């Protein structure tokens, strides 16, 4: 679907040309953590930049009984708490809060959804939102299906304007549950109404992968098996599971990070150039490359995947508990906190070029990056030099967002001494402007009807299908757990795995 357009002659030429039509955003789970920490602060920031349309309204909903006044007070406090003081203008916030409403709903009480429907009709009338609605599911995932059904049963899946629904991660727990959820959602909404959010895609640096590849003529010719030896995509976290032990112990890093964020980044790196930047053109290419990934065979699992779990150690000089000692984690837990997998893409561009994806908790530092490692120069002329590192291009996603190109250069002097140098481009040291929060971009896109940065059902399904053999194999008890110390770079098995591949993990 195309981003919605509407005719307001006075909007023309305003540099904020991407302004959505007046609409109401309904947040289910409005008493929860995500709403106060991310969603409402992001909406406030958009309001402050005058990026929201006239009449824009927010309706919060959860089981907790609360008046609209209470909700406004809570959200006002949250904005003050989660944004820097300098970022908050109380007059703008007050005006923004005047457009907030609350009505309790409970999936066990269908009447509560009728009341929601009435409130929305009133708002359409009072605030001119014309039936344009964006529902946001920020509840426990078990509620996604019942919420969808209830919205359908009171007719809120369609209106005189547009209706869209944003669904938080995780979208399913495995292939079967994903398919079941997708089926239930699509019984009520059409695919183009469904926005499966992956906040990684809202990060500027992730979007910059597309810009780097397709706005520059010099990289794309090298972006293939002739020049690329392999690609490493890493998302390292230095934190443990914190207070999310209960959730994490059911999920593990493969579900929490790799199935969504890392595979999304992988598709951006590996996809073919889309014919346009329209949502489906981009998402078709992403899905295609995902479909080209060679299925991982269960009998050769150790050639494709390595898992690990951290034991007590130290990070930044601070002692850290082992995973099995964390709150709400089973003392004999089998859940992986480290995962590395190899993907082989069976197409002309990438045949025989492995993509290594790794993510883990309790590593020495927090880094997310994509490193494209090029082949060595075919013939080494400079024999007297130290062995040269191959060229690489690194896209740093967080922190210290930037791009580094590694190449060999002559050391000044009479002899030919070649050294590897890094040529660095850092956003932070090049531009003084801060990047917007990922949720700001994604919420605005959803209001505009631009789903480019959201995951489409077929892609989510393909990603689960790809990982199922690994998830099944990892059901088996891991007798070797825990196998890496918190604060180390992961289990020995992982280094050995790369060694067998004739490569090594980048030191980060």
């Amino acid at each position, binding site marked *: 679907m195309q981003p919605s357009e509407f005719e307001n002659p006075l909007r023309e030429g*305003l540099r904020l040309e991407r302004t959505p039509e007046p609409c109401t955003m309904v947040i289910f789970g409005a008493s929860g953590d995500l709403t106060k920490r991310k969603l409402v602060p992001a909406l406030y920031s958009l309001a402050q930049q005058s990026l929201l349309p006239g009449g824009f309204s927010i309706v919060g909903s959860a089981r907790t009984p609360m008046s609209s006044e209470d909700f406004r007070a809570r959200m006002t406090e949250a904005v003050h708490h989660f944004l820097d003081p300098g970022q908050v203008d109380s007059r703008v916030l007050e005006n923004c809060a005047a457009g907030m409403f609350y009505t309790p709903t409970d999936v066990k009480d269908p009447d509560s959804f009728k009341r929601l429907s009435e409130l929305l009709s009133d708002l359409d009338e009072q605030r001119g939102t014309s039936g344009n609605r964006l529902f946001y599911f920020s509840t426990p995932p078990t509620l996604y299906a019942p919420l969808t059904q209830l919205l359908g049963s009171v007719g809120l899946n369609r209106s005189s304007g547009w209706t869209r629904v944003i669904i938080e991660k995780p979208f399913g727990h495995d292939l079967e549950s994903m398919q079941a959820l997708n089926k239930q959602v699509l019984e009520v909404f059409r695919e183009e109404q469904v926005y499966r959010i992956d906040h990684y895609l809202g990060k500027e640096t992730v979007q910059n992968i597309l810009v780097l590849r397709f706005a520059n003529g010099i990289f794309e010719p090298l972006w293939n098996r002739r020049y690329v030896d392999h690609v490493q995509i890493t998302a390292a976290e230095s934190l443990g599971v914190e207070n999310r032990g209960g959730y994490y112990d059911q999920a593990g890093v493969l579900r929490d990070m790799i199935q969504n964020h890392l595979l999304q980044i992988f598709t951006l790196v590996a996809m073919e150039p889309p014919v346009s930047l329209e949502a489906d053109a981009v998402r078709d290419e992403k899905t295609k490359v995902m479909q080209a990934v060679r299925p991982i065979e269960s009998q050769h699992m150790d050639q494709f995947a390595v898992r690990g779990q951290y034991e007590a150690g130290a990070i930044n000089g601070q002692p850290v508990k082992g995973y099995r000692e964390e709150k709400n984690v089973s003392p004999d837990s089998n859940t992986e906190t480290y995962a590395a997998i190899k993907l082989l893409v069976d197409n002309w561009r990438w045949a025989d070029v492995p993509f290594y994806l790794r993510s883990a908790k309790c590593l020495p530092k927090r880094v997310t990056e994509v490193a494209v490692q090029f082949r060595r120069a075919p013939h080494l002329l400079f024999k007297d030099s130290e062995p040269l590192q191959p060229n690489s291009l690194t896209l740093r996603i967080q922190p210290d967002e930037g791009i580094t190109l590694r190449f060999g250069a002559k050391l000044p002097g009479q002899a030919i001494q070649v050294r590897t140098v890094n040529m660095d481009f850092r956003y932070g040291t090049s531009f*003084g402007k801060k990047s917007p929060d990922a949720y700001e971009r994604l919420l605005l896109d959803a209001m505009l009807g631009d789903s480019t940065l959201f995951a489409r059902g077929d892609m989510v399904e393909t990603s689960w299908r790809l990982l199922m053999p690994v998830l099944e194999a990892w059901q088996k008890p891991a007798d070797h757990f825990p196998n890496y110390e918190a604060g180390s770079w992961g289990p020995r098995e992982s280094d050995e795995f790369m060694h067998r591949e004739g490569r090594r993990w980048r030191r980060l």
Partner: protein
Amino acid sequence: MKNLPQRAVDVSVIEHELKELWEQMTEVSAEEDQQAVMRACVANLVVVNPAGESAGEISPMIAEVTHQHPSRVILLLCEPDSSQASLDAMVTAQCHPSGRGRKQICCEQIVIQAAGEDISRLPSLVRTLVIPDLPVFLWWRDLPDFKSALFTDFMQGADRVILDSAGLADARQGLRTLAGLVEEKPQKTAFSDLNWCRLTPWRVLVAGFFDVPKYRAYLPRLNRVQIKSVGGGSSEPSISAHGLLLAAWLASRLHWKATTKPHWIDERTCDWQLEAEDRTVTIHIEITSPEGAVRPGLNSLQLLVEGEPSAQWVASIAADGKHLEGYVRLEGRSEGARVIRLDDDEEAQLAGRELEILGHDQVYEQSLKWLVSR
């Protein structure tokens, strides 16, 4: 901001001095055990300072602009009235901590002082000093003589000219000359007017009203516009440039035509009758006294539908002078309140925003053209 020692240099060796400057910066950062100084550059920014203002006075403003848009700055200080011709240049670097750690964003700045006849050498000199193949922004802080050879010469080397029509003595005549330039140069040079940028929050607020379809339905019946702005105290009654630009914006967007000149009722009020498809639209402009005004320039704007059912959209500066507030009155009821924070009207912030765009601002150019089309 940290400035390295400034060095007066011969113009022909500026590039060499720049190279030395960066080497020196690298040494400083190595000594202080900092990460390498990084240099990114997205544009050339040529700043023409008003006569009599020193480099020191404008430096903080330039620093603010280059913090957002790392550029090579070429600052021109001219003394046209000097009887002695002279040309001097020096290079300096401006560094800002980048926020995280001790890394720095650094931009190079070439300051050229020219006096008397040597001023005419500046355009060709600037052409040799700009970084090749990067856009050239020409920020003319004083209002140029649009017809002068110097301005034309500079303009030809620029991708975008940034001016401020607020300083125009005769706003109508000045904007018409500007419109002529825009017409003449349809392809290459684009124009930015800081005075137009000051209207942006007003335009955003007003446009926001009409996002709502039920209000939009009233647009074809709009028949009165009331603009109140703080007057500059000139002896002749005249509409300020921002008042003209605002009227021209509304008229060009909503396809109103001016068939007559503004009619002055008294020294402070004028009515301008415009023709819409099936009705007359009156633009009523009131110039208020600067005394007691919380902010200079535009103070309030009202759009009205007179007759039944009536409607009114009101935008005005809030009492704190820091916000723009708006509401709608429909059939006697107030609704649709909106608030927009006004940035400090500082030149640097406005200019910084203009560096974000490269192409032509079509709506601005169409508004200018509307002013001459009658």
